[in-house]
């Protein structure tokens, strides 16, 4: 889509320049056309055409006038007897039914295709570098050590992606790799704009692969080396962020358990003191309090057990023995650009030219028939 916009802007610029210099361009074309006519006609037509151009107020009309004359074959201006009265070389039915419109269609289609193809060389080539990352399952069986990270890996990947594509993370990457900005003056710090962040997000592509065990991260850049370096950095960021995320989950679980253990412990201690006082005064509900104390003790044991498991799990994450990401195919320097697709652009140009030709044909034929009908009605 951006390629199309680029070509559109280019064609628009070309049209604007042509319109700005329409009188000069049209005058030159008309003079050149007139000079290629037979000598008997040349001076007259040059003067006549320049006068007509002068009388035209609209610049597009001037250009259309001059271009149409330029494209007309020299032979068409021949006024010898044969050309006046000879039988047309084409069968009349052909002229009657299709006239000169097929040539207009072909010419507009080919001209637009050629212009679009030519314009595609002015579009900046873009290179894509991709790193493939594999998700490696935990090397310690789940039955042996239960991981505190319960999210499936593809859900967790979503969380990791959000962190990798966060403004802070991308800002650092943009500054490190000097992306999207003109070279700043020595020592000057140029802040990263929101537009740069948005553009970087557009240039990064992230895809889960059909094997269900790996994913790809790609980066698009006009420079192949930069594309490779940034894709490599992104792959590293995914791995680093994933490890940090797992450690964070394990740490948060551990902190929660510690708080719970402290709470239950203090309640146990205060209950034990109450039971001792109740025994001393022979209180009647001492048995009930003992029962509650046993219940709390059991909960406390369970919490201690969980904390031990959690410590082992955290240790597992720190040693990178749990589920982890590894680079399967590192990013490479791309050899060929992925865009612009010149054939596609030429095809789109051809389609636009064909559409324009058909529109001109329909408008022209409908208009001429209507005028003929009106004229017939008057006579």
């Amino acid at each position, binding site marked *: 889509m951006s390629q199309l916009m680029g070509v559109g802007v280019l064609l628009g610029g070309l049209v604007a320049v042509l319109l700005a210099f329409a009188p000069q361009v049209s005058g030159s074309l008309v003079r050149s056309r007139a000079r290629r006519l037979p000598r008997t*006609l040349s001076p*007259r*037509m040059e*003067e*006549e*055409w*320049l*006068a*007509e151009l*002068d*009388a*035209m107020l609209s610049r597009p*009309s001037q250009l*259309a*006038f*001059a271009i*149409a*004359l*330029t*494209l*007309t074959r020299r032979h*068409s*201006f021949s*006024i010898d007897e044969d*050309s*006046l*009265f*000879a*039988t*047309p070389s084409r069968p*009349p039915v052909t*002229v*009657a039914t299709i*006239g000169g419109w097929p040539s207009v269609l072909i010419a507009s289609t080919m001209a637009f295709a050629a212009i679009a193809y030519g314009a595609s060389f002015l579009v900046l080539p873009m290179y894509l570098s991709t790193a493939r990352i594999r998700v490696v399952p935990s090397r310690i069986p789940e039955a042996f050590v239960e991981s505190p990270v319960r999210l499936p890996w593809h859900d967790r990947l979503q969380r990791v992606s959000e962190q990798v594509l966060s403004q802070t993370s991308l800002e650092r990457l943009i500054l490190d790799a000097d992306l999207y900005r003109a070279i700043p003056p020595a020592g000057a710090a140029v802040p990263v704009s929101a537009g740069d962040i948005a553009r970087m997000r557009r240039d990064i592509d992230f895809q889960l692969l059909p094997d269900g065990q790996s994913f790809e991260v790609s980066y698009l850049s006009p420079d192949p080396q930069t594309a490779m370096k940034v894709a490599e950095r992104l792959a590293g960021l995914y791995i680093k962020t994933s490890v940090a995320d797992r450690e964070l989950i394990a740490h948060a679980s551990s902190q929660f358990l510690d708080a719970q253990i402290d709470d239950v412990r203090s309640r146990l201690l205060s209950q034990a003191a109450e039971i001792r006082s109740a025994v001393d005064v022979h209180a009647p509900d001492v048995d009930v309090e003992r029962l509650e104390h046993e219940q709390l003790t059991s909960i406390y044991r369970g919490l201690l057990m969980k904390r031990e498991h959690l410590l082992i799990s955290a240790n597992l994450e720190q040693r990178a023995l749990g589920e982890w990401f590894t680079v399967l195919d590192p990013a490479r320097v791309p050899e060929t650009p992925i865009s612009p697709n010149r054939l596609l652009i030429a095809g789109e140009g051809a389609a636009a030219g064909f559409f324009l030709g058909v529109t001109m044909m329909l408008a*022209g034929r409908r*208009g*001429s*028939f209507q*005028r*003929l*009908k009106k*004229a*017939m009605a*008057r*006579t």
Partner: protein
Amino acid sequence: MPPTVRLSHQGLRMLLAFLDAFNEDVRAELAGAELMRLARLSSGTLYPILLRFEKAGLFESRWEEETPESLGRPRRRFYRLTHAGAQVAHDALGELSPPISDGAFKPRLSRASR
């Protein structure tokens, strides 16, 4: 006897544009740009036909009388339908009439005769 010339679709459109002007004023004169507008023809189509028809006597033309110096611009050339041209135009329209009355408008856009 009017001259018999080869009439194309575009030639006929130009004759009709002239005929409109001629019906309003028999001395009506048109310049190239006005003709292009009235007949809806491009310059590349119009001028070859104009030259051929002028040679065949259907039109006559003249330069603007004032000099370019006095006008402050190039002189324009004006074209006028001759009586022979008007006759040819009427004849051509006469041949086009029946298909229109039948409701199926398929004009013969080109004819060859000598």
